[in-house]
């Protein structure tokens, strides 16, 4: 069905507009409208969004579970820190290497994933993540061991030395580019193939979708996104410890895509905002309950359970519903799609 591209329907413009609004945040801190500490928090949100986009391609679109996100984020972070710090190579090369090397591992896992079903895969990726985390502890010449490793803000093209605000804008630019890329991938042939694979692997194969090819692509993309977000993390936060990259990080990233909305690009960002930024920005400012330890964990946990039980489309669907209230038409291409998703899952369950 050919769609007319009006302004609101043009996704490139939407993402660009979103990027421009986000890049205004540093200006606002200069003007004193918002606190400087917010930049760090929103920057972290962006980093989580990037990793979440990758996992969304995997869990959302292809229905493959992975608990190895944290390991690959850490790997990207350490490689970039090592290449730019110890070897003194340019930042761009650091980013490139920190995506390419984990990619090899991602492809290996993709190959291995062909042999196993759903949850075995989750645990095997958890296994990989644990191996990586233990390696961060022990490989002291590269990772600095338990005392951690430092890195600098990026220096673009060897000329432009960025500060925190510059790095923030760089993060926004990369996130917007990746959002466009993800949108295009998911709505192109790749996305359709992944959809088919999620519905039924046998049916997908019968339709000529190569499981090998698309599983490899899905895993490499997820790994690349995760390691890129790790590399950005180390240049934004400027230090990295091995104890950061444990299972809870993978869980938080999974939580944010479930809460935000599986198979939704903006949903990933909204999920990251709810899970990562809201505890720091909102909860801490509420008197009395803001001081309770672990409240943010409980809140995300409850949200995850509520969303899975009662609102499988995620928080993003609220926005679509609001939108259709205003425009008066049921513009919910998404709602139809999730309904279909539920339907196909039901039939799948019925067969078991």
């Amino acid at each position: 069905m050919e769609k007319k591209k009006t302004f609101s329907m043009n996704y490139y413009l939407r993402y660009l507009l979103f990027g421009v609004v986000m890049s205004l945040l540093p200006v606002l801190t200069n003007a004193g409208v918002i606190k400087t500490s917010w930049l760090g928090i929103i920057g972290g949100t962006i980093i989580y969004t990037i990793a979440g986009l990758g996992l969304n391609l995997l869990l959302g679109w292809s229905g493959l579970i992975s608990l190895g996100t944290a390991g690959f984020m850490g790997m990207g972070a350490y490689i970039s820190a090592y290449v730019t710090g110890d070897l003194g190579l340019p930042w761009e090369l650091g980013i490139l290497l920190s995506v390419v090397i984990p990619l090899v591992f991602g492809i290996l896992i993709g190959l291995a994933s062909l042999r196993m079903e759903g949850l075995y895969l989750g645990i095997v990726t958890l296994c990989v993540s644990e191996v990586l985390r233990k390696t961060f502890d022990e490989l002291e010449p590269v990772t600095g061991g338990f005392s951690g490793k430092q890195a600098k803000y990026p220096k673009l093209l060897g000329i432009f030395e960025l500060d925190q605000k510059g790095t923030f804008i760089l993060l926004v630019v990369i996130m917007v580019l990746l959002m466009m890329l993800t949108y295009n991938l998911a709505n192109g042939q790749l996305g359709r193939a992944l959809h088919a694979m999620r519905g039924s692997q046998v049916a997908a194969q019968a339709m000529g979708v190569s499981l090998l090819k698309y599983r490899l692509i899905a895993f490499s993309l997820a790994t690349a996104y995760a390691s890129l977000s790790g590399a950005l993390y180390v240049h934004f936060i400027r230090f990295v410890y091995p104890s950061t990259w444990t299972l809870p990080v993978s869980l938080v990233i999974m939580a944010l895509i479930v809460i935000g909305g599986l198979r939704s690009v903006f949903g990933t960002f909204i999920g990251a905002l709810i899970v990562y930024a809201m505890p720091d920005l909102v909860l801490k400012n509420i008197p009395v309950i803001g001081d309770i330890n672990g409240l943010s964990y409980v809140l995300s946990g409850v949200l995850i359970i509520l969303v899975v039980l009662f609102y499988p489309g995620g928080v993003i669907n609220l926005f679509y519903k609001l939108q259709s209230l205003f425009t008066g038409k049921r513009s919910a291409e998404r709602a139809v799609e999730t309904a279909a998703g539920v339907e196909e899952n039901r039939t799948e369950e019925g067969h078991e």
Partner: protein
Amino acid sequence: MSILLQLLLRSLETGAIYALATLGIIIVFRTNLMINFAQGVMGMFGAYIVTVMFQKVLYAGATASGMAQTPALLLSILAGVVGAILIGFIVDIVIIRRTKKVAGTGKEIITLGMMMIFLGITPMIFGVDPMRLPKVIESGEFSILGANLSYNSLLNIVLGIGLTVLLFVVLQKTKLGLAIRTTASNERTARLMGVPTKWVTLFAWALALVLGTLAGVMIAPSTSVTLNLMDSVQVNAFIACVLGGFQTFYGPVIGAYIIAIANNLLAYYVSSVWGTQILYVLVIIFIVFKPVGLIGKKITKKV
């Protein structure tokens, strides 16, 4: 020879801990068809109950009245087990019963949510300071063929094997075990046959919590009671489940002991630093070649 025996005995102790945690995961998986990622933190929560009961309530009373430490500890463990059963009931009634309609990986994501809730409420209730939990049998050891073994380790080994055997006897010989096995085989048919599957899942969750708590109490003396108490146990228990295969009750237990023994042997004979990584990589390679685990059966999928 004595070193090897020493290593094997120590492996039996860690294996017992892994086996209990693994049984908790597998009993929930078989009856609810969901992998409980919260098993570790549930055990951690139970261990916290025991530790707080002991440190804050019973130990003070015991020292005041001149009572020995061990009865106070045993009472605390009893309190922890009762607490674990109650939490298991709450988890099943409040959350799990509503997940029957959830498809695909949704159930696992719910257990991840539960994991986050437990991670959040533990510091709320019990505070953030690490605590210590003493051994049940404080001191004393004996030697067999040159290998030393403390009485507490012996207790752990016996407890691990004993509980496993007891559970299998219950599963095979009692009516409850029959109900569990029927539910595990096919929940819908079991319900049609008049098996009270609601009670079975209730029992399964309570049992999982109790097993997790006991595993937590067993590992707590060798470290301190913190939020990360069960992290490595949980990872190893999952790997044991995958290694043994999810289709049987006994496969994962065998997997748990294999993991414990291989881990200790690799750490001693190959490399103390890289042993665990080598083991995990070996397990991954094994799974690639035998995706259903040691004892698993291949399930043919209908289109």
